[in-house]
């Protein structure tokens, strides 16, 4: 540590001032607009917003999909992370690289693939009909299922990465030790792995949940105007109606939900230990 703190401040300040002035300030003004009605501070905008059935539905749908994606990615994530951690060094690196890779690829490209896959003439429908599960193609595009799948594919890597790094920090041989002491696999998971990796789960859960809340492309392409989520609703409100009050409200909701999820998950993990 160096002693000259003023020098340190001088180094850190440009970045902080830049972000504060060009990023936080405009965002802050936008959020504050939602608390004003005719120039007066008021929560009326929020009451009006909450009273509209469409907004309620979209809010609940966003919450539901966020939870669902986080939950399912945790299940898949644990299975995948456990398998990856048990690979030998070389294979582990490769598989891990392949898991990280999609994060580096444009989400537009990632979502676009699902149009081909889920369309009426896409491979999922071909498979369903080929297997004789249904005579007519099933409508998958513009449904919550499509949005769910798209989001899951988008954010699963974040969960796997978080869990893999949590599991790598597990003390060696705790799982065999628990097995020797007579625990079955479910007990190994709930009594040993889960408590020891909960930090990774919290991190991954937060990333996936907030990612799902704030994703735009996936609900826009795979959900369209029938499966609106908060982010697409915000876009629509602004683009169609110049409704900046609703935009500010949705923005506040999104930020509060992201923070809330983080706090909640932290609380849960703290309570468990």
């Amino acid at each position, binding site marked *: 540590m160096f002693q000259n703190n003023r020098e340190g401040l001088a180094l850190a300040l440009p970045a902080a001032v830049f972000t504060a002035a060009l990023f936080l300030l405009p965002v802050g003004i936008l959020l504050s607009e939602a608390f004003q009605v005719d120039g007066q501070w008021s929560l009326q905008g929020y009451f009006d917003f909450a009273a*509209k*059935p*469409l907004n*309620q*539905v*979209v809010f609940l749908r966003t919450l539901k999909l966020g939870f669902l994606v986080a939950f399912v990615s945790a299940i898949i994530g644990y299975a995948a992370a456990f398998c990856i951690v048990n690979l030998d060094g070389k294979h582990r690196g490769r598989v891990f690289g392949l898991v990280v890779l999609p994060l580096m690829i444009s989400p537009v490209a990632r979502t676009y693939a699902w*149009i081909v896959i889920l*369309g*009426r*003439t896409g491979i999922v429908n071909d498979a369903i009909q080929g297997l004789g599960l249904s005579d007519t193609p099933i*409508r998958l*595009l*513009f449904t919550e299922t499509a949005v769910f799948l798209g989001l899951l594919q988008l954010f699963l890597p974040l969960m796997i990465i978080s869990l893999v790094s949590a599991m790598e920090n597990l003390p060696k041989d705790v799982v065999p030790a628990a097995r020797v002491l007579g625990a079955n696999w479910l007990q190994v998971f709930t009594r040993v792995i889960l408590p020891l990796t909960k930090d990774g789960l919290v991190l991954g859960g937060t990333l996936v949940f907030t990612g799902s809340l704030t994703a735009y492309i996936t609900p826009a392409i795979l959900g*369209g*105007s*029938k499966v*609106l989520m908060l982010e697409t609703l915000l876009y*629509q409100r*602004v*683009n*169609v*109606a*110049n409704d900046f009050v609703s935009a500010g409200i949705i923005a506040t909701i999104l930020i509060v939900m992201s923070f809330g999820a983080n706090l909640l998950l932290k609380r849960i993990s703290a309570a468990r230990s």
Partner: protein
Amino acid sequence: MKVLLALTTALFLTSGVAQAADKKLTISVYSFAQDAFKKALYDPFEKICNCELVVETGNSVERMAKIEANAANPVVDMAVMSSHDALALARKGLLQPLDTSKIPSHADLYKSAQDPIGNNMAVGYGFYATSIVYRSDLVEIDSWADLLSEKVKGRVALPNITGTQGPLTLHMLSKALGHEGIDFSKTIDAIGEKKEDIVTFYGRSSQLAQLMLQEEVIAAPVGRFAWSRFSGAKFPFKWAEPKEGQTGGMNVMLMTKGNGNEELAYQFMEYWLSNETQTRIAEMKLDSPANAKVVVSDEIAESLTYGAELINSLNMLDSGAIIDNRDGWVERWNEKVVN
């Protein structure tokens, strides 16, 4: 580091300078068939005016919102949009009255296109009919009511209420279902009841074309201007002639207030409205002419909304009525349909 800094600065400066050097006209247009419009309209105009056209695309209402957001400092000089969106902008005082003496072809336009929203705030450049496009190999459509029928269940798309085609569709559906009144409430409720059978509510005509080519959708209301996307495609698409008739509208061109680029904008308007250009655009089946002097072959006319007789037969909605009632429709739509 220093080198990089210098490089950055240099890049910024040069990009700024390069932009300032040219004469530039920024226009805001619909997003369909831009490749064709480029050939038919933008490229030849750029040659004549010795300027650069910067094109923004999107649906009418989105672009209208953008013009409103940027009102203090207009980005767009000249825009084309639906007549009712233009009227909304005019009422907000965001448009500049047109000096029609600077548009010589103005006199050649159909009467209804010469001053469609009053005060010379806009001129019409093209009419369109709106009807239902459907896959004739799979279904037969002869009434607007068919959109909510079993025939197209799960494979029909409707235009979103916020777009230009939305109100027109409601208008015709109301007629077909026998619901009276401009508030369309019964019609909206009827759509709400069937919402699970509707694939999606599309925002742009261009998007619908994609959905129909993808075979997600086999029938949907659409403006005639988008017909060219269907007519040559791999499936047998057909333009319905419902017993209630067709609806339609007019697209208009306008100028934003205080855009500071009036001369070029007038030059472009005149070019677009001229007999020569309107004929070319008509022959490419891009847009139906508003210039009454345009003459096209019967075969071309077949694809267009051409001729005074046809235009007069369209069940149009009054621009003022659309603006006055739109908020109410959207509210009910959000409540009953899209949730």
